């Protein structure tokens, strides 16, 4: 599993007030050398680094055997003779490919007399897999691949090793063949397989190759590395493609032909050709369809990566930093190509125009999305009422520690309110771990925090001065310092119910399988103007009628930015937040689901936040959210097949599509439909009428008018449910609110494709929460 890397060392700005501001301490160095099989505890990079350290002067000779018992004594003797007098330490790793000729017994008998290790093969039959398993346990800095039949003389080792001081891979080229016909055949074969298919002019069937151990990391995770296509061909091909220094050393041919029989000779040559062809096709296919080849999870972290910021950011493959990657471009291209071809077929067979086909399919998707939303609402309505569960006295004595992260940025005025509310939370103080996280450079807020009289257990932390200065990056900094079993974030202006911790812990106690818990979010300034009223209506619907249904159906959910209770361990396992994502909450919800943390619940406890009250602020906020949704969609859809697999199949994949890209799509489409309606109303354009006729008209009408009306009514119901009676008439204007949301979505899409991703922070003026007149 991915994790925050432990080898971190950076300088933290130490604040003057040691009581309240702590600096994050550097980690202890890697304690011990890793033993094979214990890789899970370290990243691959650390493992490789550790192995290299001890194996600088050591040669690991990997001898893949398959009923080669008769060659082994001579093989061992000649290896010893070749290496004994040199400065190199060495080990001989015999990987037995299920031999039945006593190979295992013989090698084991030699283990005490020579530096020989018997490796019992675990995987399938085949030379490539033997080599791979040998490589897994090799500890030498130099790797020699040697066939036990000694076609290439081990005495050539020294020559090879000497070359390796300047080169990366050295191959023993067999030059002197027993007779002319064999030489011709070998040269032709070498040209076809080597030059033509693999682009290397070396003896591709050479039984002696030497390369650096350090190359293995890259080699292991190369996309073409497939045990079915043979290791030799892959090594040479990859060496060429990666511009490794590839050199040859001439050796004589020292064995008679067909010593494995005619069939064995033919099949080995054919399999090499097949492997080389496979590599070529695989490479072409990968180039054409890069989105089908996700990187291996271990590849996310590079070997030896010791950048001071590496714990702050996700790997590029998981992060929104790259925006539009090559995979996304290709995927978009293929989707458009498919649509074009598909619509062309529709035109050929039905005569329907492209425009009709386009709007028809859009209408179908829109209808499906709306039906899905209605389904979720229906699920919520069917949920039985949850009676509040109180913690038992025993549970009260054994409450877990909760870490509370409070990111504050340029909000000095709100510090007193925040500190006051946090101090009011009903939970044992010794079980609370408050971390206020500030941005470096935000001295006013930091000073305000230091100056404010606050409880002693409130800790402050300053995020390193590294861009981007975003909330998720700050959260990642704070995450490392948290100590609690559970973790919750509150925005600076958030006011949770005082007993929310108790309720959340009670929910975790009552269902230990829960991965995270949502609380309901409300606004404490709903009555300011139409925007705040509509904001309240939107939240009323979402948190009362939609989110509980989503949690029940175990769907990939874009979770809230605050007031969500996580298990800290799980957050660490998923790698924390994406510092570049503008909707880090949406992103982490999906990533949690992809990592198998699917079980969520909604507790009946409210957190009040401040609604934006000006159109400008609202538009900035929603643009950021929607852009985050677009980013999350693109990040996850870079490798759609992997996403499908991670989410657990079609159902969850569709749910993701419905929630994240679907949400953006619905909002954007709303604007398009309004435009078409207004255009048609004023122009009565016959083209619009001819496109929107028959079935398409009904579907579009149902999706647009009926759905808008229905969800307007749901907003009204939501307000009624929360007893915001005075706001109920506002819900009737929800259509116009959604239209504004459509504008924000359009702006977000535009910003995304222009690769603008600045974090437009929402302004939160200090407002004294006052009860709304009901």
């Amino acid at each position: 599993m991915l994790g925050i890397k432990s080898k971190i060392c950076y300088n933290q700005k130490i604040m003057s007030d040691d009581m309240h501001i702590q600096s994050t301490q550097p980690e202890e160095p890697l304690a011990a050398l890793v033993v094979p099989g214990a890789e899970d505890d370290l990243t691959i990079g650390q493992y490789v680094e550790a192995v290299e350290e001890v194996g600088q002067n050591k040669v690991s000779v990997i001898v893949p055997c398959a009923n080669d018992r008769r060659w082994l004594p001579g093989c061992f003797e000649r290896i010893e003779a070749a290496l004994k007098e040199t400065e190199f330490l060495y080990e001989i790793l015999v990987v037995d490919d299920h031999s039945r000729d006593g190979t295992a017994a013989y090698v084991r008998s030699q283990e005490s007399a020579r530096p020989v290790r018997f490796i019992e093969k675990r995987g399938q039959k085949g030379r490539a897999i033997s080599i791979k398993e040998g490589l897994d346990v090799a500890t030498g800095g130099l790797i020699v691949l040697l066939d036990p039949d000694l076609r290439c003389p081990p005495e050539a080792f020294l020559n090879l090793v000497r070359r390796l001081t300047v080169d990366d891979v050295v191959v023993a080229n067999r030059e002197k063949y027993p007779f002319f016909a064999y030489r011709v055949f070998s040269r032709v074969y070498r040209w076809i397989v080597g030059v033509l298919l693999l682009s290397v002019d070396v003896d591709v069937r050479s039984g002696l190759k030497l390369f650096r151990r350090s190359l293995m990391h890259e080699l292991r995770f190369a996309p073409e590395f497939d045990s079915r296509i043979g290791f030799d061909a892959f090594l040479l091909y990859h060496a060429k493609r990666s511009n490794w220094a590839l050199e040859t050393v001439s050796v004589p041919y020292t064995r008679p032909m067909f010593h494995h029989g005619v069939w064995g000779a033919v099949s080995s040559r054919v399999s090499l050709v097949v492997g080389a062809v496979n590599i070529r096709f695989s490479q072409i296919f990968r180039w054409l369809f890069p989105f089908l080849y996700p990187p291996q999870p271990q590849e996310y972290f590079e070997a030896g990566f010791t950048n001071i910021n590496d714990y702050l950011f996700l790997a590029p493959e998981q992060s929104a930093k790259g925006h539009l990657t090559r995979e996304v471009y290709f995927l978009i291209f293929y989707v458009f190509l498919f649509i074009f071809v598909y619509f062309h077929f529709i035109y050929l067979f039905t005569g329907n125009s492209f425009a009709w086909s386009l709007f028809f399919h859009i209408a179908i998707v829109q209808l499906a999305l709306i039906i899905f939303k209605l389904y979720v609402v229906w699920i919520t309505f069917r949920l039985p009422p949850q009676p509040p569960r109180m913690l038992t006295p025993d549970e009260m004595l054994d409450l877990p520690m909760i870490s509370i992260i409070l990111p504050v940025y340029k909000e000095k005025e709100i510090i007193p309110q925040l500190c006051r509310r946090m101090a009011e939370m009903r939970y044992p103080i010794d079980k609370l771990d408050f971390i206020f996280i500030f941005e470096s450079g935000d001295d006013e807020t930091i000073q305000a925090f230091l100056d404010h009289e606050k409880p002693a257990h409130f800790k402050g932390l300053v995020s390193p001065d590294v861009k981007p200065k975003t909330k998720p990056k700050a959260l990642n900094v704070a995450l490392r310092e948290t100590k609690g079993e559970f973790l919750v974030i509150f925005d600076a202006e958030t006011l949770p119910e005082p007993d929310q911790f108790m309720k959340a812990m009670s929910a975790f106690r009552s269902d230990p399988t829960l991965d995270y818990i949502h609380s309901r979010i409300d606004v404490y300034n709903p009555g300011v103007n139409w925007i705040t009223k509509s904001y309240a209506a939107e939240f009323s619907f979402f948190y009362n009628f939609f989110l509980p249904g989503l949690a029940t159906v175990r769907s990939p959910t874009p979770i809230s930015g605050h007031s969500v209770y996580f298990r800290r361990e799980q957050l660490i396992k998923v790698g924390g937040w994406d510092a570049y994502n503008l909707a880090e909450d949406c992103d982490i919800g999906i990533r949690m689901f992809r990592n198998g943390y699917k079980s969520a619940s909604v507790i009946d406890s409210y957190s009040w936040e401040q609604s934006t009250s000006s159109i400008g602020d609202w538009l900035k906020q929603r643009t950021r959210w929607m852009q985050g949704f677009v980013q999350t969609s693109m990040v996850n859809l870079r490798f759609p097949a992997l996403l499908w697999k991670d989410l657990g199949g079609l159902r969850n994949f569709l749910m993701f599509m419905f929630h994240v890209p679907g949400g953006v799509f619905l909002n954007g489409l709303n604007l398009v439909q309004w435009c078409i309606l207004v255009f048609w109303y004023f122009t009565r354009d016959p083209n619009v009428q001819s496109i929107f006729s028959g079935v398409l008209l009904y579907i579009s009408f149902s999706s647009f008018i009926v759905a808008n009306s229905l969800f307007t009514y749901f907003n009204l119901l939501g307000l009624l449910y929360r007893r915001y009676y005075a706001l109920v008439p506002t819900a009737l204007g929800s259509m116009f609110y959604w239209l504004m949301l459509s504008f924000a979505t359009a702006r977000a899409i535009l910003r995304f494709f222009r690769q603008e991703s600045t974090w437009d922070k929402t302004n939160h003026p200090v407002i004294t929460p006052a009860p709304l007149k009901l």
Partner: protein
Amino acid sequence: MIHPAFTHRRVLIVIAALAWAATVLYLSRLDLITSTHDEITHIISGRLIVESLTPGFSQVGFWAPLLHLLIMPLMVVPILASSGVGASIALLPFGCVSVVLVYELCVRLGCSKNVAFFAASLFLFNPYILFFSGVPMAEILLIVHVLACAYYFDKWMCTRSVGALIYAGVAVSLASMSRFEGFLLIPITLCLVLLQLWRWKVSFNEGRAMFLLFFIPAVFGFTFIMVYSYVYSEQVLAYGGYSLSGGVSINGNGHFDLPFEKTAATIFYAARYMMPVVFVVFSLPVFIIASLVRREYLRLFSIGSILASPIIFVYFVILFGKLRMVTPETANVVYAYENVRYALTWIGFPMIACALAMQLLARIPWKIPKLAAMTILASLMLFAETVHTYRQYFISPFTPLLTELAIKDEELVDFVQQFNEQYDYGRILTLRYSNDFLLIQTGLTLDHFVLEYNYRHFEQAVHEPWVFVRWVVIPEKRGSTQSLALLQKLKTNKAFIRYFELVRSTPRGSIYRLRDTLLREEIAKFGYSPQAFPSLSSDMTRWDPALVYSGIQRNQAP
């Protein structure tokens, strides 16, 4: 010990389903399912939505649309459409639910389960309830939604359940989409909601919120009808192609501005045909007495108002001359019965009154007198119901309905027969309503006909019928709509006379056929292809009038 599965409700549903099946069987044996004008029209309206020259929403028609929308899915099966059984199947659940609602409403009002069961049984075995549950008519839809509205409204009054209020609003909406009598439910229920909110002394904001919550679903149906009417006829309330504002005068019979007492008497007589007279006479007094005794004035007033709203609507519509209702006792024109069935839709009111009466007697403190009184009352009601049912089923089966609505007269049958003898292929230009019988009896699919609901197709076909249709059927009777006037004008159109020959003329209508040889000769002179003329084509390809002329220019088939 009674098995728990045999609850009153389940037993009622089973009995209702069995009674419905028997009724459908009986009605189909008497050929009553598709025998009346309205039944056929409803079936055709539902069928046209899926099987028209211009299928879709435009074919729903200007009647209250719920029935047509409900039966539409079953109309795609030809046998279910032509026999009318498809509509019966669609209405079965509503028949069953209406019985259950009577039962539940009685239970809500405090009646014992046995009394509620008794009242529901009286309701179920009313011959007209069974009749309208089995034929394609909208009465049962209105009844069930009025009952649902009363039930949920009462639930809201007693529990303040928001869900119940929403359901009541939805029921109001569906009632107004079932029949026009449902329109009155909207103002009545809105007033009742306000009254109840005032009584609860809720704040202005809460009251407004609750009112909106009810108002939006309640007016949805009415709004839908208005928008539909406006879009397709440019009048906010159109009915059957006529404007409702014209009232009955559109039939050329003049207004019937009856005085109060005569209107009341007419409704009384009509109701007497629909249900036993004892129910009609005593239901209102029972409600009043029950209100006084139970001291639940607003509650019973609300339920009574909702249940009686259809008949109140009918009363005022007659009073203002927008509707004519005739019974033999009040006959003043040629009809013995007309619109008598409108007096059925308030049947929930007397049925609940029966249960309330029994419940009132159950308050008698002495056991034997109480049992005796209840037995006597139940026997009386049972006797009245039995006599009524027997008379309607066996003495003069459904006379008030069939004498008014039956259209299978000999002239019409002969007319259809003559058309069938002549018809070979091609599309037919005609009108609905007066020719619905023709539409259903030819056995042709409905996309063979060019009707006034095909709008621009119809207008273009009337303008130049020789281009578009092979047959023209001009009705001779009923109605004076603009469409009929247009069609009848063709008789004097020279070009029409030139290209069409009269093949049959009956008192019900004239049948014209295209002189295709003449038309072919004439278009050959211009070098046009006959394939480009829909009137000369035997296939039933749907054409667009806007594209036919350009097709003729390019010699392309439409």
